[in-house]
């Protein structure tokens, strides 16, 4: 999967944007992969394939783009968002993909316009997402292009709605603009995402570690950071630490 970097991209669209010049225009238009590919079953490798399931291939999950009408108030919010973005001079293709899944709407956005989009969500009278509920990092593992995601859950107390705004970046270039200006509550939460995932939030007022000690090395919640632990003896047998036990997927 790691060599699959440019597959499914939308050629040339991102080049028209007038964002900060240091970012590669090609990367943000990639398709959003949110899962990892699997093969086989039962987590067994190295022994002969006795079950016949060894040839099983499950591709990585790609959330399907939603089609209009999205249903319910989702269309209203999407229309309001695009109108507001237009008024603010944000190109409409800054929203890379919209998905509707399990009754929740997700906007995958171009990181260069994240702050503008959040401001639109907050300030537009027919959106009014005045409350940032949660901001969290997600790491989809080393094999996934743009593995690091920063996920913002916005709440509109006026209309009692919730949306998710998601940005995906590569681990090699994990820079995302900070939304602290728009939602001051993101302060601690962005520090946590930096601490745990190494996502660099540009223009954050004080991006320091928050849960780990200041001199800690590495970002513990990344998938390639070991869980740690020691084998435990139980009734004469040795139980390996959790990250070395058999995993079935």
């Amino acid at each position, binding site marked *: 999967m790691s060599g699959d970097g440019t597959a499914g991209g939308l050629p040339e669209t991102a080049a028209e944007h007038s964002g900060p010049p240091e970012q590669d225009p090609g990367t943000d238009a990639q398709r959003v992969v949110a899962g990892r590919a699997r093969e086989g079953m039962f987590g067994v490798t190295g022994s002969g394939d006795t079950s016949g399931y060894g040839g099983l291939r499950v591709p990585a999950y790609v959330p399907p783009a939603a089609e209009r009408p999205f249903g319910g108030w989702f269309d209203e919010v999407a229309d309001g968002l695009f109108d507001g973005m237009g008024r603010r001079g944000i190109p409409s293709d800054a929203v890379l993909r919209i998905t509707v899944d399990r*009754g929740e709407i997700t906007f995958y956005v171009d990181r260069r316009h994240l702050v503008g989009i959040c401001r639109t969500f907050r300030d537009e009278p027919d959106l009014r997402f*005045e409350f940032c*509920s949660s901001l969290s990092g997600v790491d*989809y593992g080393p094999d996934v292009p743009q593995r690091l995601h920063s996920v913002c859950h916005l709440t509109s107390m006026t209309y009692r709605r919730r949306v998710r705004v998601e940005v995906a970046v590569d681990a090699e270039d994990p820079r995302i603009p900070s939304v602290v200006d728009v939602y001051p509550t993101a302060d*601690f939460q962005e520090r946590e995402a930096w601490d745990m995932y190494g996502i660099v939030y540009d223009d954050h007022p004080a991006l320091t570690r928050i849960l780990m000690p200041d001199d800690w090395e590495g970002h513990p919640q990344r998938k390639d950071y070991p*869980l740690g632990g020691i084998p435990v003896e139980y009734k004469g047998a040795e139980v390996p630490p959790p990250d070395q036990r058999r995993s079935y*997927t």
Partner: protein
Amino acid sequence: MSIDAEQDSGARSGADPFSAEARETTEGRVYTVTGGDWEDFLDDAEQEERVVINLGPQHPSTHGVLRLVLELEGERVTKARSVIGYLHTGIEKNTEYRTWTQGVTFVTRMDYLAPLHNEAAYSMGVEKLLRISAPKRAETIRVLLMELNRISSHLVFLATGAMELGSTTGMTFGFRDREEVLHLLEFLTGLRMNHAFIRPGGVAQDLPENYREKVLEFCKVMENRLTDYDKLFSGQPIWKQRLSGVGYLPLDACLALGTSGPILRSAGLGWDLRKVQPYCGYEEYDFDVPTSNDADCFSRFLLRVEEIRQSLRIVRQCLDKMESGPVMVDDPKIAWPAQLTIGPDGMGNSLDHVRKIMGQSMESLIHHFKLVTEGFDVPPGQVYVPVEAPRGELGYHVVSDGGTRPMRVHVRDPSFVNLQAFPAMAEGGLVADVIAVVASIDPVMGGVDR
């Protein structure tokens, strides 16, 4: 090594082992004050205009291992910052190495004063990913447990808050009554804390036979005892003077800082997820959301006492609503195959089940083994499920990549987010008010640090 060091320091301080020790650093002179030795420090520091005080992380007034750094000019706090992370245990990462069901045992240990809210929110997240919903009886049991848990959590707020402000009677009252709740929870779920009772798909087992009488008995006791708090606190001049007008945080600041729960409601917005975005059938219950316009510590105290009353109302309604039926989804691929019973060696799988899988049905044994060791698959996707925990919006952002283990479990813990409002509430006030402010935020460090 450490013993030597202790002996050294003991020898150094010589005559008075309790004097405030001072040492020179690049930041200036640093004192270690342990109590009873403030005068030594004050004599020295009389000429200083600006003093930086480090409070905690081990301090009885900081609500757990919370560390506060305060910059003072005289008695006035000019700058306040909180330092957290002392109780970080990596629970979120640990859940990624266990099955979806095992995750419950981890999340219940985060905000340890609201374990059942954590369990319920996590389970609802997994259920939403699975596109299933718990049976009606399980939902009612969840509401019952969550409301009992809210009562016990608010009682700890009263107890610790009172102790931090010097009212030890309040502390004994609070913990005495919380004990009643914990006894009841132990009777209902088997454990006082860290229950792991609410599971994806429902609850672990049905309530014990005479739960009704026990819960009603508790309601009666609690309703009587609640008047004690009004007698002790609500009209008491010292309590009022310590809390009124202290820790002011208006509504716009609450929204900007993401503050939720009683702090938000004390600023006048009746935002309670049980009312505005009901879950678990809360829309069927009759209760009020108390609010205030004072936005200070005293109103937050009053609101919490009132919320206990409202929770008792909901608990009584739960008993009436409890309809018979299963407490776990009717799906053998998700529901635990064995029912728990009390055996001669304590609680465990029911003997009938053991007899069946060991003696009669090989398939049942395989099924049991697979479900317990491997767990169940959850279709890929992500959800965000918020519930109204005692401290505010407790949100679970659960991501699945289609496997038998969570890809990511993020907890939006209300204590963590609310703690950001601490500088805004404390700066400009007196040192004594800092304690009142922290008490009114009521952070639980297990939830803050996770």
